[in-house]
C-alpha cells in the first residue's frame, strides 16, 4: 500500500537539519547527574552548572545508528509477540485516571484496571495492554499495583510505567518472576516502558531514572515528546516537528549511551491548545498531521514510531467517533507502527469500556482498508463471472465464501440490521450495544492465569515495595 506522506524529501531534510542544529547549538537540559557524566564522556559539550548539553551532529548520528531498526515486542504468550515495523499498525489501549459511565466520570480502581486489561486481552485489535490508573491505592505505589494487575490479566505485551528508579527495579523483578528469571527477561522483554521529555528540551530526572533503571534488561523504551503547539513548541506544524524531532533524537542518544542497541520507539504525542477554552487537546487535524509527518521522520532514521489516536469528547458520542477515526486514519495511513489510545476520551484524561469496543471495530475497518487489493487470477474471478453469467447470482458460489471472511472486516458491535430488526433488538445506539457486549466479555473472558505460585510471588514483590516506599515517607 502506498503510504500517506505529507512531507517531501527536501522538507524532511530541512527539519532534520534544524533539529540537529538545535541539538548542537542550543542544546537541551538534563536534570540527571549520571546522564550528564555519560554524555560528557561520550564527547558532548556539557555545561554542568546550567545542566545544558550540546551534541555535535556526528555524535548524534553515530549513536542513532546503534538504535535497532526493528525488534520484537514480546508477550507472556509468544503467539502474541509482534515485530515492529510490521508493515501495519499495532494498537495499544489507553491509560487514564477516570472511567466514563454515560456522561459522568469516576476515579478508576484496581478492579477497573483489571477489567480494562482483561477487555484489551479479549479484543482482536488490541496488541499492547496498559492498565487504567489504580486510584484507590496510595499515590506512591499505584504504579506497581497497576503493573501487577496488567501481568495477571493479559497474555499480550504490557506497557509498564514506573514513576521512579525505585519502582522500576520492582517492575523488572515482577517481569522476571513472570518469565522465570532475569536472563529470559533480557531476551524477551514482555513489557516496554516510556517517559516524557518536558517540552521544550528538558529531560526531567524521573524520566531518565526510569529509562536508566530499565536499560539493564534492554526493556524497549518509548521516547515520548509531547509539546503543546503554541505553548511548549512553536504554533506551526513545521516548528513543532523540529522540537519533536530534536527531543526524541536526544532521548534516543541518551538511551543508546545507557545501553547500546536498546530498542527505542519514536513517540510523538503532540498536543494543541484551544486558545479559547485554554484546554489541551490531542484530537484535531493538526495533531493528526504532525503524527503523519512524524511517521516519515521516524522512517528516515529507521526507528519504529508511535502516536496517539484521540478524541476530546467527554462521552461516547458522534464527536468521539469521528475524532478517533480521523486521528486513527491519519496514523495508520501514514504508517505509524504503534498507535496508542484505543478506548480513551477527553484527550487522555478518561477511558470508557464501551469506547474500547467501538475503537476495536474502527481499527478493524481501518486495518482492512490498509491491505493491498489482491489482484490475481483467482481474485479477478473471471471463471466465476463466466460461469454465473448475466442475471445470475454469486451467493451460492464456493468462491464467494472462500473470500468473504478473508476480504471483509469482522466487527463486534457495529450495527448492520434493518430498522425493524434493530427495533426488535431494543433500538440500541452503538454505546448501548457496546455496554452489553462489555458485560458479556467481562463475565466470560478469562485469560490464561499466571501459575498460583507466580501470582503469590508478585504479591510478595508488591508488599516488599509497599513496605519500602510507604514507610520511607
Amino acid at each position, binding site marked *: 500500500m502506498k503510504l500517506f506522506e505529507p512531507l517531501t524529501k527536501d522538507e524532511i531534510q530541512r527539519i532534520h537539519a534544524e533539529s540537529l542544529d538545535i541539538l548542537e547549538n542550543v542544546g537541551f537540559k538534563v536534570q540527571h547527574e549520571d546522564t550528564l557524566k555519560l554524555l560528557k564522556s561520550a564527547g558532548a559539550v556539557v555545561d554542568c552548572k546550567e545542566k545544558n548539553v550540546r551534541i555535535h551532529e556526528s555524535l548524534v548520528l553515530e549513536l542513532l545508528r546503534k538504535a535497532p531498526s526493528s525488534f520484537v515486542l514480546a508477550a507472556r504468550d509468544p503467539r502474541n509477540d509482534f515485530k515492529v515495523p510490521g508493515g501495519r499498525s499495532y494498537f495499544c489501549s489507553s491509560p487514564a*485516571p477516570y472511567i466514563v459511565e454515560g456522561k459522568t466520570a469516576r476515579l478508576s480502581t484496581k478492579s477497573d484496571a483489571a477489567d480494562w486489561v482483561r477487555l484489551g486481552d479479549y479484543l482482536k485489535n488490541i496488541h499492547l495492554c496498559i492498565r487504567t*490508573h489504580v*486510584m484507590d491505592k496510595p*499515590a*506512591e505505589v*499505584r*504504579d506497581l499495583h497497576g503493573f501487577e494487575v496488567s501481568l495477571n490479566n493479559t497474555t499480550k505485551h504490557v506497557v509498564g510505567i514506573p*514513576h521512579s528508579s525505585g519502582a522500576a527495579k520492582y517492575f523488572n523483578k515482577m517481569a522476571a518472576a513472570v518469565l522465570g528469571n532475569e536472563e529470559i527477561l533480557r531476551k524477551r522483554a514482555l513489557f516496554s516502558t516510556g517517559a516524557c521529555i*518536558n517540552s521544550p528540551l*528538558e529531560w*526531567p530526572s*524521573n524520566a531518565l531514572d526510569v529509562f536508566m533503571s530499565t536499560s539493564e534488561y534492554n526493556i524497549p523504551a518509548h521516547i515520548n515528546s509531547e509539546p*503543546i503547539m*503554541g*505553548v*511548549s513548541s512553536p504554533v506551526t506544524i513545521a516548528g513543532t516537528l523540529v522540537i519533536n524531532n530534536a527531543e526524541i533524537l536526544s532521548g534516543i542518544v541518551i538511551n543508546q549511551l545507557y545501553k547500546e542497541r536498546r530498542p527505542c520507539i519514536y513517540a510523538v504525542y503532540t498536543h494543541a*491548545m484551544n*486558545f*479559547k*477554552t*485554554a484546554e489541551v487537546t490531542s484530537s484535531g487535524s493538526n495533531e493528526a498531521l504532525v503524527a503523519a509527518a512524524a511517521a516519515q521522520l521516524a522512517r528516515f532514521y529507521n526507528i519504529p514510531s508511535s502516536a496517539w489516536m484521540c478524541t476530546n469528547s467527554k462521552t461516547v458520542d458522534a464527536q468521539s467517533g469521528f475524532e478517533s477515526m480521523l486521528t486513527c486514519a491519519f496514523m495508520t495511513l501514514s504508517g505509524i507502527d504503534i498507535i496508542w489510545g484505543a478506548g480513551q476520551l477527553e484527550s487522555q*484524561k478518561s477511558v470508557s469500556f464501551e469506547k474500547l469496543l467501538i475503537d476495536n471495530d474502527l481499527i478493524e475497518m481501518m486495518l482492512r482498508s490498509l491491505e493491498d487489493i489482491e489482484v490475481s487470477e483467482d481474485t479477478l474471478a473471471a471463471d466465476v463471472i463466466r460461469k454465473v453469467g448475466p442475471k445470475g447470482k454469486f451467493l451460492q458460489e464456493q468462491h464467494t465464501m472462500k473470500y468473504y471472511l478473508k476480504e471483509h472486516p469482522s466487527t463486534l458491535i457495529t450495527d448492520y440490521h434493518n430498522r425493524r430488526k434493530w427495533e426488535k433488538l431494543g433500538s440500541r445506539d452503538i454505546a448501548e450495544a457496546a455496554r452489553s457486549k462489555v458485560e458479556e466479555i467481562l463475565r466470560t473472558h478469562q485469560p490464561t492465569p499466571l501459575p498460583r505460585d507466580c501470582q503469590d510471588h508478585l504479591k510478595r514483590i508488591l508488599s516488599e515495595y509497599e513496605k519500602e516506599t510507604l514507610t520511607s515517607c
Partner: protein
Amino acid sequence: MDEEDIYTKIIDAIVSYDSEAVARHCREGMERGMEAIDIIQKGLAKGLSRVGELFEEEQLFLPDLIMAANAAKAGFKILGPEVSRKKGSSVFIGRIVIGTVEGDVHDIGKDIVVAMLSGAGFEVHDLGVDVPTCKFIEKALEVDADIIASSALLGTTMVGQRKIENLLKDLGLKQRFKTLIGGAPVTEDWRKEIGADGYAENAIDAVRVAKKLVEEKKGTNV
C-alpha cells in the same frame, strides 16, 4: 479630557495588550494629579476584569489574556512606587508564594496563573517547579506571604498539596497562611479532603479566589 477618559484609555490599552499605551496613560494620569490608587482600581483592575470576562465568553484567546496581564503589569510598575510612597505600605493587594509541587515539573498552567496574579496586582514569589514541601513554607515565612499556592498536573503528585497542609498543621502555621490549590486533576472535593482554603478551576478563577482569601485573612487578622 477628564479622568473617565484616562480610565477608558487604560482599559482599552489593556484589552488590546498595548503595554506602552498602558504606561503612557498611567503617567498621563499622574501628571494630571490623579491618585495612583484610583488609577489602579478604576483603570488597571477594571481592564483586567474586562479581559477576564471576554476570555470567559470565549471572545479572547489565551495568549491575549497573558499579554493583557503583562500590559497591566507595566502600569503597576509606574503606579506602585507612588502608592507605597504615599500610603507607606505596599501597593500589592496580597502576597503569594507559588510553585508546582515536589516531583512535578509542569509549569505551563502555573505560569499562566502567575501572569494573571501579577497582572491583577499581587506580589508573586514564583518558586518554579518540583518544589519541596518545606520550601513553600520557608519562603512564605521569609516574605510574610498571605497565600501559599500550589499546582499539580499529575494524579501521582497531587499528594504534594496534602503534604503542604500537613506540614503547616504540624508546624502550627495553618492559621497564618491561606492555601490555594489548582491543576488539571485537582477538584473541589480534593480541596475539602486535604483541608486547603481555596481551589481555583483556572487562571481567572485563581485571581478571584486569591482576592477572596486575602479579604478573609485580613478580616480575621483585624
